[in-house]
């Protein structure tokens, strides 16, 4: 029997220590000497406590502090200049929410008229009871009975995808799920990658080959799930049935019945509302879909391991590269992950050329 089928034990990679101590010393001296020309910055990467500029004309932004008319960095990262605003963007750190971000989060607490949601930020985000769609129509007021049964909609541990609606003054993000593409997540698995690897784009939810879909949260929380067949989706059926009803009403009476067709959007919300809070998975998830989901899981882990930015195209290329491994179990090995990422990079070079 091949040992590698059971366990793979490798030696840790030797630490590459190529920092020359002499150079380092002279560097520090350099840093401590204030620059005459304050408009040119020594390097775009700074460490905490390093002088960024001594020109008081700059406005201090995130990641900096101001002392005796000089601006210092408070994090390790890249200097960013927008007009007169000077900030340092940290290389690593917690996810910083921005309005409009599509994120995946997990409920941590049910509180007064709101849910607390872990989205990987410093403080848990909040999802107000008023920011979700509830059964009974989108436009109705939230009543006391809704408050009492909040745990029936979302409870501790539940995963959802949502959009950052606004950032409060204290830095806490407020979320909303007022769209059919947001809400509780089902039929799949969850994984985390560093949020810095997720590249922001217009869309963060993709259908991938192999009947698998992904919600690639900007916060680095990812949900892989079985693609919902478009023709069978609740939303579409209700639309079609409403349309046919509408047509039927036109046909039979020969006149337009007000209310029949016009409620379709409200009806759509109503009919799907309880369903969007269901905990039941699709009973028919085939083994091939399940296997594909694990494949994508490993591809995403490989991208994260090799610190490659994650995009739809790279996920698909990684998936195609992973198909070369017939023994799917070997995908968790370091070598396999590196080779998949190498394939992706080569592929991109070829396309770029």
């Amino acid at each position, binding site marked *: 029997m091949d040992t590698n089928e059971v366990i793979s034990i490798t030696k840790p990679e030797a630490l590459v220590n190529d920092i020359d101590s002499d150079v380092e010393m002279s560097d520090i001296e350099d840093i401590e000497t204030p620059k005459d020309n304050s408009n040119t910055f020594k390097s775009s990467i700074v460490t905490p406590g390093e002088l960024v500029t001594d020109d008081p004309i700059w406005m201090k932004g995130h990641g900096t502090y101001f002392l005796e008319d000089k601006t210092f960095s408070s994090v390790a990262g890249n200097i960013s200049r927008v007009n007169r605003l000077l900030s340092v963007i940290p290389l690593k750190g917690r996810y910083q929410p921005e309005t409009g971000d599509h994120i995946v989060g997990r409920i941590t607490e*049910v509180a007064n008229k709101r849910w607390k949601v872990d989205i990987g930020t410093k403080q848990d985000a909040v999802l107000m009871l008023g920011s979700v769609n509830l059964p009974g129509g989108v436009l109705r007021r939230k009543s006391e009975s809704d408050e009492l049964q909040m745990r029936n909609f979302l*409870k*501790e541990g539940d995963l959802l995808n949502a959009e950052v609606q606004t950032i409060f003054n204290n830095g806490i993000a407020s979320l909303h799920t007022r769209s059919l593409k947001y809400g509780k997540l089902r039929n799949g698995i969850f994984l985390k990658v560093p949020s810095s690897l997720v590249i922001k784009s217009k869309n963060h939810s993709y259908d991938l080959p192999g009947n698998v879909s992904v919600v690639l949260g900007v916060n680095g929380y990812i949900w892989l799930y079985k693609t919902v067949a478009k023709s069978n989706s609740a939303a579409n059926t209700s639309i079609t049935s409403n349309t046919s009803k509408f047509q039927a009403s036109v046909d039979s009476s020969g006149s337009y019945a007000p209310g029949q067709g016009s409620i379709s959007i409200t009806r759509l919300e109503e009919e799907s509302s309880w369903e969007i809070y269901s905990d039941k998975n699709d009973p028919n998830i085939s083994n091939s879909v399940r296997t594909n989901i694990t494949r994508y899981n490993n591809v995403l882990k490989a991208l994260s391991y090799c610190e490659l930015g994650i995009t739809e195209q790279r996920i698909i290329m990684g998936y195609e590269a992973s198909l070369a491994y017939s023994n799917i179990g070997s995908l968790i090995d370091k070598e396999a992950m590196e080779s998949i990422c190498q394939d992706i990079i080569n592929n991109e070079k070829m396309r770029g050329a």
Partner: protein
Amino acid sequence: MSDRRRLIGPLNTIIPNIGISSNATEADVFKGPSSATRNEDGLRQFFLKTGIIENANGSAYLEVGGNIIQVSVFGPRPIRGSFVDRASFSVECKFLPYISQPNEQLYNNTTVNAGSTANTGPTNANANGRTGLTNIEQKISSYIETALLPSIVLEKYPKSTIDIFVTILSTESSNSGSTKVDAALLGISNWVLNCSSVALVDSGIELKDVVTSGVATLKNDKLLLDPEVISSGEDNENTLTCVVSFMNLRNDEIVGFWMEGDQSKFEESQVEQLIDGCNNMSRQVRANINSYFTSTLE
């Protein structure tokens, strides 16, 4: 109106007659385990009583051979803090301080340096002024907790906690010699489990089944149920000991399993034999517990 700032003792307290001799004879004080009579089914007779602790929601007392065990169940009690949809369940098992625990030098890091003048005493501070549980106590607690967990209908008690406290008043391994085999440990775990199950039933907490347990030793291909552990000097070659806990009315599902022993002769068939033995014993114990409860109802 009573003083609410103080914890008041139970109303029906009795002050013990301390220092009055009961004229106990040597034989009364310690009826050696050998004096325990065995029934025709091979088990030792055991004494069982429930409801002895008024303050607890359920309690049980068990004597078998030289083992004396007392269990109290508290709960379901409400818990504060974050919401949980099922009750949390914990077991804490303690030996009385003067009882020697089976193989304690080995597991509890109580390095007793006989002959050495530097008598540092037990490192775990267990003998007197002990802090937490010893490793052995923790291990028995975990065994009981794991085995009872599947039997309790925890989802009936959201935001609650159910706690079991076990006190071992006496064990038969008074001589914790140099024995390497943990038969004594398995033996006591077995009876602690049976006693805890009875206490759970007594508490009225909803159960899927009463977990009962059996312990068996296979020595030179001879199966012995409920072995007595007295002779630490005996050689333990080719001995396998096993405690298995079952839910006998739910397809004999195994909820607790712990096997120790010599490794030189060790076949799957022997494990089967041991499980069968333990199942036999578990069923006997179950029958006894059932008849105890029906008799208390009459």
